[in-house]
């Protein structure tokens, strides 16, 4: 250890393992809950169970992509204030190989098992006579699906790996070259991440209803992921303060700034979601409106179904509530209130994913299945989340808790309101 490192009062997180939650606890919980979910195949309907897994893994991927984009944005703007909160995010984005492994079973089961498990277009023979599939078959076919998925995860693992490698290496040698290298990574990483997450959203969620199309869909996926990732960042940072790791490091100014970005993305989510709805509503073309009809009406009876209520919940719970909360300056400086709203944002982000994914499963008469949470929705969400936290805490224990030799670390430590 060099003299300058020894002189500092910030010790590596590895020196104080007892303060934080034990990573292996999360591993046990994660394995147990994912195993319970997988065992559900013996009792539950295959489509619905696979959907539980898809929603959970896509939720955590959205969160992780939001974290990845936060780190990229930090570098591209040469931001100062966010240097200390960048480190927990860097630990989080080491999760992509794990998420690739957790996503793979869905792809393999669709390819080699039940083709229409989730994505009906995977069952070529069933959709061969459907002109709307034939016209899209260059994109919606198993080969392209596999290749693209390898590209998606490959890109995220690669970009996240570069960011992590340079940031952690800078702790040791203090070279500014690492900062510059990460700025370059951000320059190509942002368009690369934007394109890959857009097409991932097309494949994973939009193609569940493969007749439907919305070019803004990737932006919606990004907005949801960013919001959830920012909420998770607040929770992790406040947890680290509570455990003493971030005391004197994570300031009220950081919390206020995160609250302000959350306000921006709350508005952004509403803007994108409304734009998508509004354009489809205004154009009134049946190829597009059926997607919203499914989420409002039982087609046979014309009565409102449970998705109408979920839609209103999203409007008020995912927009108006956080919007008015974050408008109040005092709210954003109070840790207890921020914890409450961030937990809510994470929950409602999952409901948002469910609103997009779940109605693709139909009842016998063609109506969407009603909104409902199964045991396996919960076990998949908790299990995969616990595995993500296992990855996070394992990574966290290996490095210093802040990028101590980053050129902008002092600026960040003095981030006041």
């Amino acid at each position, binding site marked *: 250890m060099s003299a300058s490192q020894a002189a500092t009062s910030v010790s590596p997180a590895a020196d104080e393992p007892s303060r934080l939650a034990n990573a292996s606890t999360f591993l046990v919980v994660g394995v147990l809950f994912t195993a319970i979910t997988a065992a559900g195949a013996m009792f539950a309907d295959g489509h619905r169970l696979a959907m539980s897994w898809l929603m959970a893994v896509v939720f955590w991927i959205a969160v992780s992509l939001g974290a990845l984009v936060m780190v990229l944005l930090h570098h591209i703007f040469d931001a100062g204030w966010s240097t200390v909160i960048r480190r927990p995010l860097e630990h989080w984005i080491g999760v992509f190989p794990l998420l690739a492994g957790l996503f793979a079973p869905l792809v393999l089961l669709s390819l080699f098992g039940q083709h229409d498990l989730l994505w009906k277009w995977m069952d070529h023979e069933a959709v061969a006579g459907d002109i709307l599939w034939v016209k899209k078959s260059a994109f919606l076919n198993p080969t392209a699906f596999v290749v693209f998925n390898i590209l998606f995860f490959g890109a995220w693992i690669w970009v996240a790996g570069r960011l992590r490698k340079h940031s952690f290496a800078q702790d040791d040698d203090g070279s500014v070259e690492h900062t510059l290298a990460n700025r370059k990574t951000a320059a190509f990483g942002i368009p690369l991440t934007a394109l890959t997450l857009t097409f991932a959203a097309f494949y994973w969620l939009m193609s569940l209803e493969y007749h439907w199309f919305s070019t803004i869909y990737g932006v919606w996926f990004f907005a949801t992921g960013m919001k959830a990732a920012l909420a998770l960042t607040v929770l992790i940072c406040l947890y680290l303060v509570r455990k003493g790791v971030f005391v004197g490091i994570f300031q009220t100014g950081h919390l206020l700034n995160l609250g302000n970005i959350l306000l921006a993305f709350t508005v952004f989510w509403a803007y994108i979601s409304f734009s998508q709805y*509004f354009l489809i*509503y*205004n154009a009134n073309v049946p190829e597009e409106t059926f997607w919203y009809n499914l989420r409002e009406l039982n087609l046979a009876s014309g009565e409102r179904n449970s998705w109408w209520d979920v839609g209103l919940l999203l409007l008020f719970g995912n927009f108006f509530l956080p919007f008015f909360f974050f408008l109040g*300056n005092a709210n954003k400086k109070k840790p207890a209130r921020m914890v409450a709203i961030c937990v809510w944002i994470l929950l409602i982000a999952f409901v948002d994913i469910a609103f997009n994914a779940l109605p693709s499963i139909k009842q016998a008469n063609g109506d969407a299945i009603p909104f409902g949470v199964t045991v396996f929705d919960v076990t998949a969400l908790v299990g995969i989340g616990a595995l993500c936290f296992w990855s996070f805490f394992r990574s966290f224990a290996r490095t210093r808790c802040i990028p101590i030799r980053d050129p902008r670390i002092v600026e960040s430590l003095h981030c*006041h309101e």
Partner: protein
Amino acid sequence: MSKNLYGLIARFETPASVMHAAEKVRDSGYTRWDVITPFPIHGMDAAMGLKRSRVPRFTLAGGITGFTLGMLMIWWMGAVDYPLIVGGKPYFSPIFAFPISYELTILLSAFGTIAGMFILNRLPIHYHPVLKADMAARATDDGFFIVIEKDDPKFSVEKSRSLLEEAGAVEIGELED
């Protein structure tokens, strides 16, 4: 000169000394006073005991007015003044009134912000007694100043002067109105 006295001006050498002096003036209970520095000093708002700006209230008022106006305008035009069916839609729905309401929310929020700023800071001021003091010229270079106005209820030439001296002023002058 004292007949037209406006207040006292005191020069300090460093940002730190003017900041500590500001804390002393604040703690002595003065309300009509100001600090003049060549550049913004971090933490000065707290040292002066300044509260958070009230501009956001004007912004909010502007935003609510804009949103309401937008909704009323589309409702009145489409459902009252000249009812016309467009694209099979109802005469009025908040959905298609939303974009224009949203734009007006932003526009009137911006107007409210700018108007609120000018109302609260009372700019433009074409004349200010501080401009007449020769030493105040250094406020654009290397001088850090505190001005206490005569109108302050706690003002007294002797006491205020001694307070500023104790606070570390290197030069004190009287301002003519």
